[in-house]
Structures are given as C-alpha cells and as structure tokens.
C-alpha cells in the first residue's frame, strides 16, 4: 500500500506539519460489536486471517476456549471468554471480540516516534504503516487497551486495520461480512451509535438494567464499539472502565518535549552569552589581581 496514496491522513505520528488530507470528505465509520448476539464461533477470527493472509503459530490448548490466548502480531482479533458472576450465584459467560478500538484520540499514534508509522484517516481508522515502523514498542506504552503487538520475525508493530484496504473501496471489514449472527455491524459512526443505543434499549427491556454502549469518551470515543450487558463493569471482560491515555505518556509526549528542547538549546545559548559577558577565567589576570 505504500505508494497507493490515500490522501486522507488527518493525523500522522511524529509529524509537526499538516498531512495530505484533501480527500477528507468521508463519513466517520465505526464497527459495532453486539456482544449479546455473539455466539463465540470465531468466524471473524478466521475471516481476519483469511483476508489479511495471516497464519499464527499453532499454540497450546490450556483448557479454555481462548485460542490463541491473546492478540499476537499474527492474530489481530481474538475471541476472549470470561466466566463471571456479576451478581452472586449468577454465573454468566461473556464473550468479547478483542482487537484495536480505533480511538478517536489514539495513544499509539501519540507515542510513536517514527514519522508516518501510525496514521489516522479521515474516516477514523487508525492504521499502522509498517514500512515506517522502527520496532521501538512505544505504541505498546501509548495504547490504553494493550493492543499493538510486535512481531518477533520482523520487529514491526501490528494490529487490526479495521480493514482499511476494504473500507477504502467501499467494502465492509472481513470480520463484519462473515459474522453469521449479525453481531458485528459496520457503518457510519452516527448510525452505529444510534443502532447501538437501540440495542441497549432492547436489552434493558429484557432485564439487563446495566446494558450500555462502550464508546469511551476518555479517548474521544472509539471507532470500534461494544454493546454490553454490563456496561457498568467493563472490567468483567478485561476492558478499562474509563480509559485515557496514561498521564505518564501525556507528560512524556506533551510538555516534556518542548521543555527539554528549550532547556538544552537555552543552556548552550546561556553559556555563549555568559562567556561573551564575563570572559574566560585565566590564570594570568588572576595572578595580577592577587599580587
């Protein structure tokens, strides 16, 4: 994709000037994952492997359905299974399709030091441009959702692309297309929020008072959202309740940079002017003064 210009880049890692974004008259998109409709069949995992030509190593079965156990550089989406008791004595089996959330304010992009290794497109998709990736792992520290994975083979970071290549030509993501129960929806962000709210209403009618839409505002909202039965406790399924970019990352990538650069340049300039004002310390002059 390197030379296929998209010209819809609204944000670019480690870049301080405007990016090519003339073709930005596109709607914001979103993927909506309705957990109440998901049966955990993993068809989306397979579709993702197929469309993206990914093949993960065969791992070990440790007696749970999670397979592979976690996201990897070759598994950009993974079904996670949680046996939880939101109410005492009321066992529930929650299933979540894990993967990149496509944050409106992406911590990965903020942290990345390599110009253009991470871009955000006008439609909201956060994309890793792997040929610019230097393998430093800063995106891993920037992401509030523990999503990016760095390949042991090529030391590049990988994650779900939201099928930016398909979306760019008007197709829905592969995982969306394949889902047999219609649990994964794709459309404009507005439509998906509206549809999600509707589903939440239906769930509430059926007795799930805490149902809700997971579209965390701490990262400006996300372009991958969940309809949850227990939106008051996203921790039940391994998601942070109020995710934000870590303050540590904000300081490091925010105020620290201009402050340090100003300090270093300032020290040299101060030294220069000090020398010009005061002059060097020379033993000859001092000798005379002492005498």
């Amino acid at each position, binding site marked *: 994709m390197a030379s296929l210009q998209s010209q819809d880049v609204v944000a670019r890692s480690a870049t301080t000037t405007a990016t090519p974004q003339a073709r930005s008259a596109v709607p914001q998109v979103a993927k909506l994952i309705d957990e109440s409709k998901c049966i955990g069949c993993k068809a989306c995992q397979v579709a993702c492997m197929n469309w993206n030509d990914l093949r993960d190593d065969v791992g070990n079965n440790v007696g749970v359905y999670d397979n592979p156990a976690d996201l990897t550089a070759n598994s950009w989406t993974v079904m996670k299974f949680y046996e939880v008791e939101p109410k005492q004595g009321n066992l529930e089996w929650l299933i979540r399709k894990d993967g990149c959330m496509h944050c409106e304010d992406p911590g990965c992009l903020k942290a990345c030091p390599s110009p253009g290794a991470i871009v955000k497109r006008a439609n909201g998709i956060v994309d890793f441009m792997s040929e610019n990736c230097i393998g430093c792992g800063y995106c891993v520290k920037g992401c509030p959702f523990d999503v990016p994975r760095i390949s042991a083979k090529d030391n590049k970071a990988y994650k779900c692309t939201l099928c930016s290549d398909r979306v760019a030509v008007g197709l829905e993501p592969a995982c969306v297309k394949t889902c047999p129960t219609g649990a994964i929806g794709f459309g404009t962000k507005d439509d998906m929020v509206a549809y999600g709210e509707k589903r939440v209403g239906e769930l509430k009618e059926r007795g799930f008072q805490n149902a809700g839409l997971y579209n965390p505002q701490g990262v400006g909202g996300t372009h991958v959202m969940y309809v949850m039965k227990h939106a008051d406790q996203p921790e039940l399924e391994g998601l942070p309740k109020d995710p934000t970019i870590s303050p540590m990352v904000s300081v490091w990538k925010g105020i620290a940079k201009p402050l340090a650069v100003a*300090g270093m340049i300032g020290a040299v300039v101060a030294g220069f002017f000090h020398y010009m004002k005061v002059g060097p310390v020379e033993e000859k002059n001092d000798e005379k003064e002492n005498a």
Partner: protein
Amino acid sequence: MAKLLQRYNDRERMNHWFIALMFVLAGLSGLAFFHPAFFFLTNLFGGGPWTRILHPFLGLLMVISFGALFVRLRAENRITDADREWKKHMGDMLKGDKASMPPVGKYNYGQKMVFWLMTLSLLVLVITGFMFWRPWFAPYFPIPVMRAAVLLHSVAAVVLILTTIVHVYAAIWVKGTVRAMTRGTVSEDWAKVNHRLWYDEAVKRRS
C-alpha cells in the same frame, strides 16, 4: 613556559574520551526518538530500525566506561564542608570574580556536582533503559512500569545532557583546563589559581 603538573594518566584520559564519544553517539541516537525535530539523526546510524537497535548498546558502553571513571574518582569527589563554603561564593565566580573563591582541592564543588549528576543520571538511564529494551528485556516488564521507565529515561537523559553542557562549558571557560584531558598535564599557574590545595599537595609530593 610554565612548569607542568600531571593531572590524569593515559588510561584515565583515553577512558574519558571513550565516554565522551559514547555520550555523543548514545545521545544523538536517543534524541532521534525523543522529538520529531531530531528524527533526522537516525540517518547517521543507518535509519530508524538500526538506530533503535544500536542505541542501547552505545548507552551501555558509555555506562560501563563511566563505571571505570566512577571507581577511580569517587573518593576525590566526596562533598566536604569546604565545598559547602565554596558553594556560597559560586555567584561571585560566575560574575567573573575568581579572586574571592576559597581554595579548593582536586575538584571544586561545581565539578563534584557534575560528577554526581552524571553518576545519578547514568544510573537511572541504565536501569530504566533495560526495562524497555526490545526485543530482549521489555517483555519482562508490565506496560505501566514501562511507561514510567521511558519517562524517567528521557528525564535522566536531559539531565545528563544539560550537565554535560555545563561540564564542557566549564572546560572552555576556565582556560588551561582542556589540556588536563588532552595532554594529561596542567600548568602550575592553572593549578595554583583553580585548585590551590591540590597544587600544594602535588608540589609537596614532588619534592
């Protein structure tokens, strides 16, 4: 020409310049990741991935060689009461009034502070550096720990760079100092003016 006093032997000097070289290389490769304005420095090291690969090794070489210097000079850099006295007059010195400074030994308070700031920042740099050294060590540390580590690493690097700017400036400012490290010797006049107590000792030792 004034008579000379030995201040550093060859091994100390070569080690010092090896540290300085590694400081420049580790510093430039590190700054490349610190701010987009410096990313072009990766070109000096063969591109982004190579800079990422090389930086920790360069830093480690600097830390190891500084370790040798630390062991040699630790005792001579202990802060004493005389240093605290000297510190009170530091403002005069900066204004160019060298005459009112109390006599000092081999190192003055400013030099000792440079020594300890470098020691401290290198210690922080090496410890935090290992915590996010990909691919080998980073996997052993949880993400929140790594976040703190990168922040501390960059703060320590800036402290080290600022300290080194002061250090280099002092060498330029106080005439006759640079030859201590380039030749190993200083003039007696230089020593008399800048390190009186060390001068007295050196003369006594010689006679």
